């Protein structure tokens, strides 16, 4: 009986693995999870923490990618402020410090770059952003984070009193991708599903 159950679980697992890698299943699920709203002017661009820094104190790829998206939105004139968040850990500088440095090196005026250094979770980031942007009268923000995490982050920021626009505006359904890339997308979808469940149980959503 146990062997039969194991075989059924294994067959489903192998079938899912093949379906994820060799069909657009992951693309469709990811697209379905992504909220859609027209991209437009806002009071601030908020770049959520993503990935942190390397042992040498450099931003890792995911963190730099998110920051560059925020810098690009700023340079397109979509908001006058750029709030960068990130992991507070790092022996040779934190993600927030490095992101602020890189933003200024990209030509964004120092007074337009705000930092949120105390947040360790997305929930902390929403509350921290309210503490920084609320007194400045900012109500509408453009949020920069992973596509899969956007729905949860948007809900948290809306609960914190913001009107939120996802950085990508309207999501685009991409059919392509290598099996490995699709597996990565599906992994982030599963992680996000677990995170949503936890946030609901914790009363954050």
């Amino acid at each position, binding site marked *: 009986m146990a062997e039969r159950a*194991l075989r059924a679980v294994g067959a489903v*697992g192998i079938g899912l693995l093949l379906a994820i890698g060799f069909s657009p299943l992951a693309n469709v699920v990811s697209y379905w999870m992504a909220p859609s709203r027209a991209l437009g002017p806002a009071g601030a661009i908020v770049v959520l923490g993503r990935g942190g820094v390397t042992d040498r104190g450099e931003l890792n790829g995911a963190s730099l990618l998110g920051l560059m998206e925020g810098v690009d939105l700023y340079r397109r004139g979509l908001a006058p402020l750029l709030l960068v968040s990130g992991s507070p850990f790092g022996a040779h500088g934190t993600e927030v410090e490095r992101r602020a440095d890189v933003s200024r090196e990209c030509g964004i005026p120092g007074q337009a770059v705000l930092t949120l250094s105390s947040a360790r979770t997305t929930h902390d980031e929403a509350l921290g952003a309210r503490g920084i942007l609320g007194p400045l009268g900012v109500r509408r923000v453009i949020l920069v984070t992973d596509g899969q995490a956007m729905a949860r982050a948007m809900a948290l920021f809306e609960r914190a009193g913001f009107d939120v626009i996802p950085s990508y505006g309207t999501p685009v359904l991409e059919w392509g991708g290598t099996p490995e890339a699709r597996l990565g997308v599906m*992994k982030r979808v599963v992680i996000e599903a677990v995170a949503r469940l936890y946030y609901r149980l914790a009363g954050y959503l």
Partner: protein
Amino acid sequence: MKPLFLLVVVALTSMGACAVGIRRLGLRADRLRAAIASTCQLAGMAIVFLALNVALGLAAVFLARGVLRVFVSVYVLNDAYLPLLSVIQAVIFESWRGQRAAR
């Protein structure tokens, strides 16, 4: 194109293995179904180990946060080695079970 290419490569080596197995090693073609079932069983055991590892890891993370007041990121579990190690656990455990059955 790349996914299709990978499938074609794997299909060709699978057909080659079938040919070698039947003609050179004398394996019976009718036993292939049982081999696939065993593979599914092994995969099922790997999934069980992965679920246990994730559940235990999450419990440890939330225990550290709630009881010890130490912040540990859930992303410590986000590592490609966790599924690989789960597969190794499953292979060893299933081999062990197989030895008992052979006795």
